[in-house]
């Protein structure tokens, strides 16, 4: 820890200037990342709070805690907030914003002011949605299916739809910025084959953001228009086809689930390599798998509509294509596992989360394979099986990866170390709590318990109680990091530039980095994850 002391006094992005204005008008990607960090954390608490109310309601079969209308609003707002305002911006807008320019040796993203604009747009969307929620809420489900959303719901659908519409542009601009940055701003020698896998996977996610988000934006706009002026585009009473809405919605929202996992996969690649001190096994395949997922992800959307009344032949095609998109994910999982082989493994908190990610994503992904099978999906669609599937990939996958990444880059971001023992405890709580919450839901789902049910038949109670119990453990697991991260800002040990002895340009600059990232533009002469030539730190047996 000899190097630790020098980093405090140095001018860095945090202390370069002070005052609220210097933050709200910044165009520094690192500060913008912090703005996102604060806002999406707030959204996560709101969404999590709704989740806890959902779980409490489901303790008993009768709908006794809240009214059915309230319940419907709860899961709708939980879904909307978690998906559009937390998970989609989570890894890209916070961690990606912070580390991508550092990783490629750039001074900033290609369009710093657009980056700031993205955050403002995000805030505008979030506030619009929250206002819609506070003034009455929405009860359409996060999927806004017509004609319920356009004709029968009497809640603030337009407000919520416009909120998401606005936030969509934030996502579009972030994606655009990432793509242009990764194409145009790489430091000398940082070829595509030397690009960290985190950049590859964010690049792939950004492709989806720019290609898919505009479609859902226009679709939600049509819903708002149809609702406001009673024009007929999707309304069956006016001759429209409600399934067209579903097609357009899922054209974005299926690929969007890969926006919600690809950046997380990137985090895992970095961490696995670092803590086993090895180049990621099959680097090219992992990189290409990201692109393959992004492209193939656009071909499978109607697997959400197998019982919706689409043509059976179309269902066949979409089922087949859904299997194809599962393969590149499998490739990644196997390559991560192979990376561990003959590595030199340390169990720091980020690595524990990464192990958790691989395991839970595998379960979540494989149950996605169940759903892609037509015969099975007919039985389990719209049941808790689906709920369990997507929480496994989204919470067990992406939220785990986000936590992993936060811990991994926290020393770089804050210049302080987090308390390792507490962090390990919370990782364990999250893992145990998560499985207790969501594994029972697979069983519930196959038994036929429908989702979005405020009250349910009594024979499903035991499993529901288990699930609620798990959710409480999970909540503790999430509250802990919140506390110790804040604590560490003040009391944490000072972080050296490269606490994990990792390879990567972001570790070659001080912690926290100076405003312009690098004193001079680095020139890259080594391959990605070149742990072979990275001097080894002395083995600390303590871990």
């Amino acid at each position: 820890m000899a190097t630790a002391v020098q980093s405090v006094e140095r001018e860095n992005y945090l202390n370069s200037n002070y005052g609220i204005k210097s933050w709200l008008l910044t165009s520094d990607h690192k500060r913008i990342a912090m703005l996102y960090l604060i806002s999406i954390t707030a959204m996560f608490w709101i969404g999590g709070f709704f989740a806890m109310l959902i779980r409490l309601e489901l303790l008993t079969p009768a709908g006794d805690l809240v009214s059915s209308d309230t319940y419907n609003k709860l899961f709708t707002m939980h879904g909307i907030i978690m998906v559009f305002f937390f998970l989609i911006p989570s890894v890209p807008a916070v961690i990606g914003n912070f580390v991508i320019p550092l990783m490629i040796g750039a001074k900033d993203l290609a369009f710093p002011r657009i980056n700031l604009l993205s955050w403002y747009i995000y805030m505008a969307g979030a506030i619009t949605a929250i206002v819609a929620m506070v003034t009455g809420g929405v009860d359409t489900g996060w999927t806004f299916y017509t004609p319920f959303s356009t004709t029968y719901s009497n809640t603030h659908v337009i407000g919520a739809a416009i909120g998401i519409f606005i936030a969509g542009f934030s996502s579009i601009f972030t994606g655009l910025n990432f793509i242009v940055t990764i194409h145009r701003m790489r430091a000398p020698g940082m070829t595509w084959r030397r690009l960290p896998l985190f950049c590859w996977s964010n690049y792939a996610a950004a492709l989806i953001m720019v290609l898919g988000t505009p479609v859902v934006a226009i679709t939600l706009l049509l819903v708002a228009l149809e609702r406001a002026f009673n024009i007929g585009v999707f309304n069956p009473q006016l001759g429209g086809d409600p399934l067209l809405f579903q097609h357009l919605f899922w054209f974005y929202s299926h690929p969007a689930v890969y926006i919600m996992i690809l950046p997380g996969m990137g985090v895992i690649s970095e961490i696995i390599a670092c803590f086993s001190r090895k180049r990621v096994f099959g680097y090219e395949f992992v990189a290409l798998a990201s692109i393959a997922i992004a492209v193939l992800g656009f071909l499978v959307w109607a697997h959400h509509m197998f019982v919706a009344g689409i043509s059976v032949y179309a269902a066949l095609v979409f089922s087949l294509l859904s299997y194809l998109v599962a393969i590149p994910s499998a490739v990644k999982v196997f390559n991560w596992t192979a990376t561990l082989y003959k590595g030199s493994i340390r169990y720091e908190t980020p690595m524990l989360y990464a192990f958790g990610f691989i395991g839970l994503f595998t379960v979540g992904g494989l149950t996605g394979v169940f759903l892609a099978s037509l015969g099975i999906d007919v039985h389990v669609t719209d049941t808790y099986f689906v709920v369990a599937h997507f929480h496994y990939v989204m919470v067990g996958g992406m939220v785990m990866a986000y936590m992993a990444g936060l811990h991994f880059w926290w020393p770089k971001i804050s210049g302080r170390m987090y308390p390792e023992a507490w962090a390990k405890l919370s990782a364990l709580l999250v893992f145990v709590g998560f499985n207790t919450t969501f594994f029972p839901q697979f069983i519930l789902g196959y038994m036929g318990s429908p989702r979005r049910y405020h009250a349910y038949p009594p024979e499903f109670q035991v499993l529901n109680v288990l699930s609620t119990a798990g959710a409480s453990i999970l909540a503790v697991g999430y509250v802990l990091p919140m506390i110790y991260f804040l604590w560490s800002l003040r009391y944490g040990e000072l972080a050296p530039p490269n606490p994990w002895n990792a390879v990567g340009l972001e570790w070659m600059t001080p912690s926290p980095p100076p405003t312009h990232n690098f004193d001079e533009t680095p020139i890259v002469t080594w391959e990605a994850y070149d742990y072979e030539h990275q001097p080894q730190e002395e083995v600390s047996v303590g871990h």
Partner: protein
Amino acid sequence: MATSDIQVAEHALQHHFADMEQQQETSTFGMWMFLLTEIMFFGGLFCAYLVYRASYYQAFVEGSQKMNIWLGATNTAVLICSSLSMALGVRAAQMGKPKLMAILLLITMVFGFGFLGIKGIEYHEHWVHHEFPGPNFHFETGDPAHPATDPQHTQIYFSLYWAMTGLHAFHMIIGIGLVLWIMIAGLMGAFTPSYFTPVENVGLYWHFVDLVWIYLFPLLYLISKKHGG
């Protein structure tokens, strides 16, 4: 390159780029990425159009016969002319002639307003004939021998017509604003032959909006001249 040129260029170089070339290529690429998102944005509407037209062709034919082809064609021509003046305006910027550029951009804006004016006349026509979707929608072919076969789906045609042309018109309005902005900036000497990226990007945007109309025109106005029935 005159020295003042270089000064402007130096001034315009943002800190995080290595040089003007990187900056210029980056922002042009960014603009094209943005246009890609615009294509997908309109794409959702085109997809809806395709689906309904494939299913309710006759209703769409009857709806499109309410379009004033001559106004539509004139508007197409107006837009093409505006594209020409825009292209020439970018060229003037490229050659370092800010006055000429301003004049050409002014012409572009005039065409832009012309387009919106004509579109407004058309909108008015449809409005008074109740060809606006919603509770007041009412559709008649105007030919007693051939009553409307499927007014319900003709309404969908009109919904899409208003949505697509409305979104397009909205883009035009933004486009005019952007042209005005670079015109003023140009007159104030913001651009030089080595730095005119904003002009170029606004030009790209303008041409893109023109390009969308090139498809809207045949799809909405020219479905079939044959009379319904």
